[in-house]
């Protein structure tokens, strides 16, 4: 088989009509774009929903057995903390409080905020300071605010700004940032565990999670078992992220809808791309018939179609990736906290889909071409 010559013919047949070729590429490109866009939003949203777990940097989390997402704060009794501290393999254990509060703004309005109370001793899970000193967190009424897009909902705050939180006084003593910003658009305030659980009356007076730093991963099964015996649950950060993602994917209407839309986008993308290529083959059926009559073997016909499918698939994929990365870049530029994330995972998923689509479409095309009677062409 004359691979080079046939390849050249295949490409020329495909690209000869530049209008049709463009349509074909745009069809596949748009399908890829759709898939990437939806999966990016989906993964982005899910990743952000677990930002607390990521940001805290703990190795393991101890929690109530019914916790299924990182916003849950089902209180744990103090002895869980003591028990965790006593376990072999635990380097240290610290409580953390995760909850919500209400800030009264100078203009009289209220704004919901996320409150994180850090262990007074270790400050485990602290944010990265960008302004002020972390030790000021110990001063009276002190809060450290996370400088993200949501902060401006508290108005124009600076170090020394005072406010009312759950009818208590609060002072901003510094600004920090987290590696990953959260999904829900509330400002985040950090304070000490003691103040979070004692000074803010509407909150519960107990531990939300016990954070563990461990000596080595080999202790993980042991720790889990011990905590389980106590009636609670210990998860590694990775596991907790998964549990959390599962929660947002399947147990919230929001996650479920995005998931369904993502699946729909795959199906729509699949059919657009498949349909476009299949139509191309159908439109060229008589040309394949002529090739057949002239004397092309089945292998040669299949080769030509596969070359064309691969070319359309890859160029279309490139166009799709380009479209969606520029779209997402634009999103990040214009929308604070824009959640879409174009990762290797979904790019690979889209690539697999494109390969699948083109393989399927060319399979249908090949079947059709191999079936066409050269005689039909001959008859005109």
């Amino acid at each position: 088989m004359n691979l080079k010559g046939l390849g050249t013919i295949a490409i020329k047949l495909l690209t000869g009509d530049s209008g049709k070729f463009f349509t074909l590429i745009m069809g596949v490109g748009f399908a890829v774009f759709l898939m990437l866009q939806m999966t990016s939003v989906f993964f982005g949203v899910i990743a952000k929903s677990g930002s607390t777990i990521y940001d805290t940097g703990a190795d393991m989390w101890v929690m109530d057995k019914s916790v299924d997402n990182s916003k849950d704060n089902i209180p744990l009794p103090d002895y869980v903390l003591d028990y965790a501290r006593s376990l072999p393999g635990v380097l240290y254990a610290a409580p953390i409080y995760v909850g919500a509060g209400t800030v009264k703004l100078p203009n009289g309005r209220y704004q919901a905020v996320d409150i994180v109370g850090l262990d007074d001793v270790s400050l485990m899970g602290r944010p990265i300071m960008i302004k002020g000193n972390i030790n000021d967190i110990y001063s009276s009424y002190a809060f450290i605010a996370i400088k993200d897009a949501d902060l401006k909902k508290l108005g124009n705050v600076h170090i020394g700004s005072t406010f009312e939180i759950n009818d208590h006084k609060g002072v901003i003593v510094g600004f920090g940032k987290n590696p990953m910003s959260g999904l829900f658009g509330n400002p985040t305030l950090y304070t000490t565990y003691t103040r979070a659980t004692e000074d803010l009356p509407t909150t519960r007076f107990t531990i939300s999670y016990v954070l563990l730093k461990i000596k080595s991963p080999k202790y993980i099964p042991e720790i889990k078992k011990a905590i389980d015996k106590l009636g609670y649950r210990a998860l590694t950060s990775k596991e907790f992220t998964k549990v959390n993602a599962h929660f947002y994917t399947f147990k919230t209407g929001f996650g479920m809808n995005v998931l369904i839309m993502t699946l729909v986008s795959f199906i729509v993308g699949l059919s657009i791309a498949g349909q476009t290529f299949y139509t191309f083959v159908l439109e060229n059926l008589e040309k394949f018939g002529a090739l057949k009559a002239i004397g092309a073997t089945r292998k040669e016909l299949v080769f030509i179609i596969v070359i064309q499918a691969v070319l359309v698939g890859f160029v279309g994929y490139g166009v799709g990736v380009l479209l969606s990365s520029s779209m997402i870049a634009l999103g990040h530029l214009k929308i604070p906290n824009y959640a879409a994330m174009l990762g290797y995972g979904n790019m690979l998923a889209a690539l697999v889909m494109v390969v699948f689509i083109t393989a399927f479409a060319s399979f249908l095309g090949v079947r059709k071409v191999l079936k066409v009677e050269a005689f039909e062409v001959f008859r005109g």
Partner: protein
Amino acid sequence: MDNKKISIRVQNLTKCFGSGEAKTCAVKNVSLDIYYGEMLYIVGPSGSGKTTFLSLISGVLRPDNGKVIVKDTDIWSLDTDSLARFRLNNIGFVFQDYHLFPRLSVLENVAIPLILKGEDWNKAINLAKEKLQMAQLPESKYELPAYKLSGGEQQRVAIARALATNPTILALDEPTAALDGDTGKKVMQLIKERMLTPERTILVITHDSRIFEDATRIVHMEDGVIKEASLNEIH
């Protein structure tokens, strides 16, 4: 004609379409010997089975019954791909509506059979030039996409393509149907003068009585059956 060598031997060829009530037999038990050096015309009314017959003997339509022996090969005993290769090397087609690849250049169109044969691209393009010269297409058209050519020019490209691999058999279905009288006549004369050699057989299906005089023999087809006809009879 007894001393001539047979290039195609057709034996008891039958082809029917459909089944039951709708069954029509387009070719009915036809036997015919065709010789080297012949320019054989197959004429007859529409629907009489001419295209079907030509397809059967040139290896693009499988008969229900009978044999076609081309250059000592029983073509319908070959498997699909061997037959495709046999066609590539031995039979050139000029389809009724040419079936050129409209977006490929004239040269590329003619080069296709050579590419299939395994020639490398440049060699194929050079050979294509020779064939196009033979088909008397002006050189200024070689690089144009085929769809930009007139009907008569496309016809010449189709002829050049059919002859690209130097086939023994050249099969043309209604070659002049889409051409005006003068152009049609010119093309047929070109074929007769330049392409008909003692080693070749040319088969022509036509309705066009103006070109009958170019035939070396004419057979008449009616309702799936072939009758020999003398040139005078036809005129």
